């Protein structure tokens, strides 16, 4: 590190720049290669592109988790909930877009309402025919939930494992709620059979390409936003809270507000990720709320390396690629390899995959990189004075 008085790395430190360049290259290259005709050896199939689009959404989600867990020490086992809520907001918009092209040709009601003979559209479905409204909800609903939940939890100083478990309770409750058909979200089948978005056919390669690029951009922006936060003084306050919450209070920081702010930001990012995910996979249903999903995405982050942001991205992509590959290559026993992967990484790469790179490059100026050994995430009440 330099001895220059202002010795904090800026937003764009080496790793960030490295990451963004890779992202931009991928974001541009894939669509171009996809445009090539399929005979060309370099051709990237639409399948692969949609797949990567999906990974990018997961990556953004992972970044959101890393922000609260890596830097703030809040282990949220409920982030899938925010992801799914964003997804549902988008799904509802896409449902409304179908209009009278549903199998029953009902101009207003989505198919699942027609054959469960609902009479009129539930109030909470109003407005979703407008994209701007849907977009607003994508940000607002997860954000609002995170705000209310966080406001309750942080103000009453619920910390550590207790916080983790009630986040899990939150997503579990939502899971059960969305399974109920009375809720009007399509029950177990969820929302599916989407036709088009903003008037563009969802099945056309062009739209897919656009969505892919959009996901890449969202990831890039989300990443930069997180960097802005973690490199700001607020970011350092966050780390301070993670390591010694009480101490941070005694030097005059309103810990609960800091937590709330970052938690909400993270939730919004997750929501956006979900919203981009849905049109690319073509379905949103309650199983996205499943607590196991939330745990799994924590695993992505840990696998990539906590509190590095790019580690989260690497983890998300790695695990999901492994899944895609293994479920086809060794369908009967892929869980063995995945499970083994988790165990081995935790045992031998406590800093995640990125940990290796850091060891290789001591010059890496990412000052946040070294706070992984700190164990008291679960009892991050710091001072026992």
């Amino acid at each position, binding site marked *: 590190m330099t001895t220059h008085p202002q010795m904090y790395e800026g937003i764009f430190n080496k790793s960030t720049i490295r990451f963004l360049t890779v992202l931009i290259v991928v974001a541009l290259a894939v669509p171009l290669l996809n445009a090539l005709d399929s005979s060309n050896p370099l051709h990237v199939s639409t399948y692969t592109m949609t797949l990567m689009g999906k990974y990018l959404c997961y990556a953004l989600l992972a970044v959101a988790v890393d922000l609260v867990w890596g830097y703030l020490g809040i282990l949220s086992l409920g982030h899938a909930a925010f992801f799914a809520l964003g997804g549902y907001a988008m799904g509802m918009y896409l449902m409304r877009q179908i209009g009278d092209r549903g199998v029953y040709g009902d101009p207003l009601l989505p198919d699942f309402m027609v054959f469960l003979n609902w009479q009129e559209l539930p109030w909470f479905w109003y407005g979703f025919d407008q994209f701007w409204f849907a977009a607003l909800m994508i940000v*607002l609903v997860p*954000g609002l939930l995170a705000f209310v939940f966080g406001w309750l939890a942080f103000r009453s100083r619920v910390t550590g494992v207790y916080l983790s478990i009630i986040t899990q309770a939150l997503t579990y409750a939502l899971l059960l709620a969305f399974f109920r058909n009375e809720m009007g979200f399509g029950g177990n089948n969820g929302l599916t059979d989407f036709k088009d978005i903003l008037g563009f056919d969802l099945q056309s390669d062009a739209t897919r390409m656009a969505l892919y690029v959009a996901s890449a951009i969202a990831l890039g922006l989300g990443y930069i936003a997180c960097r802005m936060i973690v490199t*700001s003084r607020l970011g*350092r306050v966050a780390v301070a809270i993670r390591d*010694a919450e009480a101490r941070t209070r005694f030097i*005059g920081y309103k810990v609960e507000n800091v937590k709330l702010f970052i938690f909400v930001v993270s939730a919004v990012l997750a929501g956006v990720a979900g919203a981009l995910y849905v049109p690319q996979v073509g379905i949103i249903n309650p199983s996205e709320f499943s607590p196991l999903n939330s745990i799994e995405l924590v695993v992505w982050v840990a696998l990539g390396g906590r509190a590095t942001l790019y580690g989260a991205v690497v983890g998300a992509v790695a695990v999901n690629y492994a899944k895609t590959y293994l479920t086809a290559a060794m369908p009967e026993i892929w869980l063995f390899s995945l499970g083994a992967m988790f165990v081995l990484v935790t045992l031998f790469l406590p800093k995640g995959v990125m940990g290796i790179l850091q060891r290789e490059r001591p010059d890496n100026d990412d000052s946040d990189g070294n*706070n992984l050994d700190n164990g008291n995430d679960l009892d991050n009440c710091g001072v026992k004075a």
Partner: protein
Amino acid sequence: MRLIEEFQHRDKVFDFMMPNTSPALDVGQGYLLYLEDISVSFDGFKAINKLNLYINEGELRCIIGPNGAGKTTMMDIITGKTRPDEGSAWFGQKINLLEMSEPEIAQAGIGRKFQKPTVFEQQTVFANLELAMTGPKGVFTTLMAKLSSSQLDHIDHVLGQIGLKQQRNLLAGALSHGQKQWLEIGMLLMQNPKLLLVDEPVAGMTHQEMDRTGELLTSLAGEHTVILVEHDMDFVRSLANQVTVLHQGSVLAEGTMDQVQSDDKVVQVYLGE
């Protein structure tokens, strides 16, 4: 996000109302801290019992007493960590400490150093000081905060005071025990509080370290008011004029070191053993 802005708003207001020493702080009577009839008990055990304590502005007061005398509990009450069952605690004439949260109290101008040195081990010495630095500490101000050159100088000055100039970019976790103690004191300086609560600052220090710490604390007295809890008698004698002896949660004796030491009650319960 409307709601976020709302609470950003609330923050701004709050920052405006509470700079590091509150305008409400009025030390007309010369007293900076009043503790009156404070009692608190933890499941049955009375940790503090009808404690009365008055601290003059600018004085350096040492609190001594055997273990379990309630020294640390008293500090917890002052800093809002613990709520007393009864009694009142006033900071100056106007600020009722019992109605405020830790951060508010800190912002009002009371800084605290813990018994066990607690610094942010994952961050550089510089960052530790910067975080402690006086000024508005709302979410959005912190998010946007930039270091002005004067603030930089202030930090460098304090680095000098606590003798950690070389270690500025070291992770605080890498410091020695003594250095951590100083860093924590340094953080207090950055906070620039009216009242410092210092809990056993020289515990586990070498003699040289002790002397430096002594100098530090005396240099603080005057512009800051200091309450020092300490076991080490020589160290206490070396700086304090006023000494308060706590025993079983209430004041046993008060006065200069010599007066206190000659007090037989004290001798009996404390120095005697």
